[in-house]
């Protein structure tokens, strides 16, 4: 999984990086199964590795981005970025491993989590998180409207240019 994640940020071709991210997300789904979250694992495969990554690959191929431009104006920032990221990573790992607590018994985990079934997660979503659930619905609606309006404005501005050559073409008989 770490190899895949490193591949995401080091590979030059965006398509390769996106496919590397797909591998990372699928590995994460298997980790979810090990963490008693079967429903989330399947959602991860369907939504993330399926829908979101297809959207990414579609945009990469639509825009025909060949290569990352590489380091440009801010070359001096790059060593600083590596140092900062390394320090943050070490600090995070030290923070989370400095005070280990024992896991509860396997039987308790099995009983409470119920394998992370859709039933149990749905109960939590519609009892404790019902407000967040509704807000996510509003957010998704806003996202749909935003994405459509972004594309729609461009389509409207390009429409006169696109339609003018079509008018000059003579009508052709269909069929025959």
């Amino acid at each position, binding site marked *: 999984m770490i190899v895949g994640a490193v591949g995401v940020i080091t590979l030059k071709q965006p398509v390769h*990086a996106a496919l590397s991210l797909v591998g990372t997300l699928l590995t994460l789904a298997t980790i979810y199964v090990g963490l008693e979250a079967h429903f989330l694992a399947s959602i991860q495969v369907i939504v*993330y590795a399926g829908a979101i990554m297809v959207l990414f690959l579609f945009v990469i191929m639509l825009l025909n981005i060949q290569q990352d431009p590489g380091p*440009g104006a801010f070359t001096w920032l790059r060593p600083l970025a590596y140092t900062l990221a390394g320090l943050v*990573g070490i600090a995070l790992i030290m923070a989370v491993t400095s005070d280990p607590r024992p896991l509860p018994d396997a039987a308790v*985990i099995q009983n409470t*989590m119920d394998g992370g079934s859709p039933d149990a997660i749905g109960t939590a979503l519609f009892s404790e*998180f019902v407000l967040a659930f509704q807000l996510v619905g509003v957010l998704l609606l806003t996202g749909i409207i935003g994405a459509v309006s*972004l594309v729609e404005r461009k389509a409207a501005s390009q429409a006169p240019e696109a339609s003018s050559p079509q008018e000059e073409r003579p009508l052709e008989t269909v069929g025959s």
Partner: protein
Amino acid sequence: MVPTEYYIALSAIIFTIGALGVLTRRSAIMIFLSVELMLNAANLALVAYARHWSIAGAAVALSGQAAVFIILAIAAAEVAVGLGILVAIFRYRNSSDVDSLAGIKL
């Protein structure tokens, strides 16, 4: 069973790699991919802690997994809008380099 710390350490490593990607890459789509990496690291931490707190009962433990579900939906919305903006910028500028957008005004 694997202790929770290992999962959290893995999550921290993945998050750091994602942050490094955001800091070092210049193509906007690569930055998006790195942000996805960071979101997934946060999800992994939430799921790991959800299992860790299963002693506190199903309501507490499964709230972690419910939060991951909500984050998934938010990530989907973010990707849809972000890629829409990216396509719009690319049509105008013919480049996905974020440095070329330095003069942009909101």
